[in-house]
């Protein structure tokens, strides 16, 4: 029975500004609506240009139930299209990546397509005389989807009518991608090897809320942080001379940071569900400096910009609803919902070209000890997420509480006022999660594309004005940005939020 598809009111009742109803996490109908109205209309992460360096190189991916091909074009751009033959629907390629020369041929009846997806040839052509093939969908070739490239990160939007990337994503979030790319003295990143992939038996929103959850760290991860501390202390006391703190220890110990530090991290939220957690400090702030690297960065970017990049290490930047990334260490997680209670998380690492290898080693070490399916840190997250999925299904309380941090957000008449297009919050404020549900609700209750566009475009318009002109973001694979150095490199309006000296004490 379709309760939610027929009634915006029923959907609105799932989130009252402070609480989320369990159906948001449990209902297969809601999940289907999320795929149609949210994931199919948002710019989502597809891949990175370095995965398809040559014309004809491709990767396959699946987004919101649609199988896709991302193919490097002859002109250097990239295009994302349906991985579905226009003839009978067979997938053109099933492997994760590969290469085709000039054309891609279907393994079923040999229909072939140019790299841009247009139909090149069908066999037994004379047999179509008198048919309506030429005016049918099949003649259009592979369905092409909106594709945008920003600093070599490739995004796709399944909705042909959706506004462009820079209209949906605030400039400050794109600025965090700049900050990651600019950790390379050459301004370029490269995907480092295959990604880690973890399947978790929970709703995707449980994972996404946790991206912005600092309060769980020293509770959920107590065993990992304290075990690391105990072993490290024993190691030190057994050593005849002072030991350098190993990278893994440097990364594990901050998980026991207290809530005072977490609050002072600070966060910022934008309409559309986007956020940056850790605008003043993060668990990554105190990683040791890398000899020679700062000088190389200053030589490349000038001192002010170089210092700005090096000081900027937010805990998580979130491009709602599917991308969580860290400028440093250069890591990007992609959240891909597989079902109402099944979520795939991809964990990608990036090499900053021209930077010392230790930066990449730091990224890979962090991803492995914190996000891998074998990570003792991830284990405690995953077991909590999966238990939430079970807990919510039970009788009794039907609500998830997101009440924390409401002070000052109520209007004089008592109504909830969290409607600003941008707001700064404390690092433990659950507004970081409420902001996700505000966007979620907007997406789900709006049934026509135009209204979704105007809402998100309006909310992001002020922020995105500079990005649209300066970023080199390009739609439909024109990819002017693939070789470009960002216009921001020496400008005073770089979107990084100043990190005013909060240190862990």
């Amino acid at each position: 029975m379709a309760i939610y598809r027929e009634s915006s009111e029923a959907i609105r009742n799932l989130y009252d500004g402070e609480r989320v109803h369990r159906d948001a996490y449990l209902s297969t109908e809601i999940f289907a609506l999320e795929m149609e109205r949210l994931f199919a209309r948002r710019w989502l992460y597809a891949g990175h240009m370095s995965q398809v360096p040559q014309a004809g190189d491709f990767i396959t991916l699946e987004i919101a139930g649609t199988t896709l091909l991302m193919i490097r074009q002859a002109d250097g751009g990239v295009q994302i299209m349906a991985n579905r033959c226009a003839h009978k629907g067979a997938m053109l390629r099933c492997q994760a990546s590969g290469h085709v020369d000039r054309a891609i041929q279907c393994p079923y009846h040999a229909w072939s397509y140019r790299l841009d997806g247009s139909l090149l040839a069908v066999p037994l052509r004379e047999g179509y005389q008198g048919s309506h093939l030429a005016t049918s969908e099949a003649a259009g070739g592979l369905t092409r989807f909106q594709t945008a490239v920003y600093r070599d990160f490739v995004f796709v939007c399944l909705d042909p009518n959706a506004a462009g990337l820079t209209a949906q994503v605030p400039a400050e979030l794109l600025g965090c991608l700049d900050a990651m790319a600019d950790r390379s003295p050459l301004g370029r990143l490269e995907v480092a090897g295959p990604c880690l992939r973890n399947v978790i038996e929970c709703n995707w929103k449980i994972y996404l809320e946790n991206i912005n959850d600092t309060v769980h760290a020293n509770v959920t991860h107590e065993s990992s942080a304290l075990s690391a501390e105990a072993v490290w202390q024993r190691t030190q006391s057994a050593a005849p001379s002072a030991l350098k703190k190993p990278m893994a220890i440097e990364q594990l110990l901050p998980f026991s940071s207290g809530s005072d530090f977490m609050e002072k991290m600070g966060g910022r939220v934008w309409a559309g569900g986007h956020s940056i957690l850790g605008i003043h400090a993060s668990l990554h702030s105190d990683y040791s400096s890398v000899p020679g690297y700062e000088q190389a960065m200053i030589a490349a970017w000038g001192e002010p910009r170089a210092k700005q990049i090096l000081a900027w290490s937010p805990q998580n930047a979130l491009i709602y609803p599917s991308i969580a990334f860290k400028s440093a260490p250069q890591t990007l997680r992609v959240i891909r919902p597989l079902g109402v209670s099944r979520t795939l998380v991809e964990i990608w690492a990036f090499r900053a070209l021209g930077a010392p290898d230790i930066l990449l080693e730091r990224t890979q070490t962090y991803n492995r000890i914190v996000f891998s399916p074998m990570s003792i840190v991830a284990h405690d997250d995953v077991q909590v997420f999966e238990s939430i999925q079970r807990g919510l299904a039970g009788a009794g309380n039907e609500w998830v509480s997101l009440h924390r941090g409401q002070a000052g957000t109520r209007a004089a008449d008592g109504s909830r006022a969290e409607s600003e297009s941008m707001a700064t919050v404390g690092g433990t404020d659950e507004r970081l999660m409420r902001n996700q549900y505000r966007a979620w609700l907007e997406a789900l209750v709006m049934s026509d594309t135009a209204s979704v566009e105007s809402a998100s475009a309006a909310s992001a318009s002020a922020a995105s004005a500079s990005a649209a002109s300066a970023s080199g973001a390009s739609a439909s694979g024109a990819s002017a940005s693939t070789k470009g150095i960002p216009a921001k490199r020496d400008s005073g309006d770089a979107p990084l939020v100043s990190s005013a000296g909060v240190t862990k004490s």
Partner: protein
Amino acid sequence: MSTNTTAAEHERQRERALALVITEAALLDAARWQAWLALFAPDARYWVPLTSDQTDPVLQQSLAYEDPLLLSIRVERMSHPRAWSLFPAPRAVHVLQAPIYLGLDPASGLYQVDTAFGYTEVRGQREIQLSGRMRHRIRLGPIDAQIVLKRIDLINADAALPSIYLPL
């Protein structure tokens, strides 16, 4: 006589190397974590690559790549009262195919044993099955036998995997 002694020594080395592999699996399945950890040499690595042809454990990603320090943290946490994912306690069993003794690698001075295996891990009602091939590189001292490298190539290392709560 000396030829016989050498043959007997070789046989003894083969037995010690194979015994170590079998003992290691038994200690894991018995959850004797400290005894398991003690099998690893100070310079040992425990490695679960993401791809079967992987040669770089540092700059390429792996499911796990741990030195004795990280293994010690893993073991330390096993007895922590708030290691939430260990409640209910996961249990596992390794089923080993007959290990293949590949002899001494003269370059490294290490003895080599490769073993195909199946692995079942349960935690409450949840059960996962994995399989693959493990490669042990072993240092045989006068008395001690130590693991210098345990490399585990899962046949589906490149798949999207659920949590693997215990060391493979």
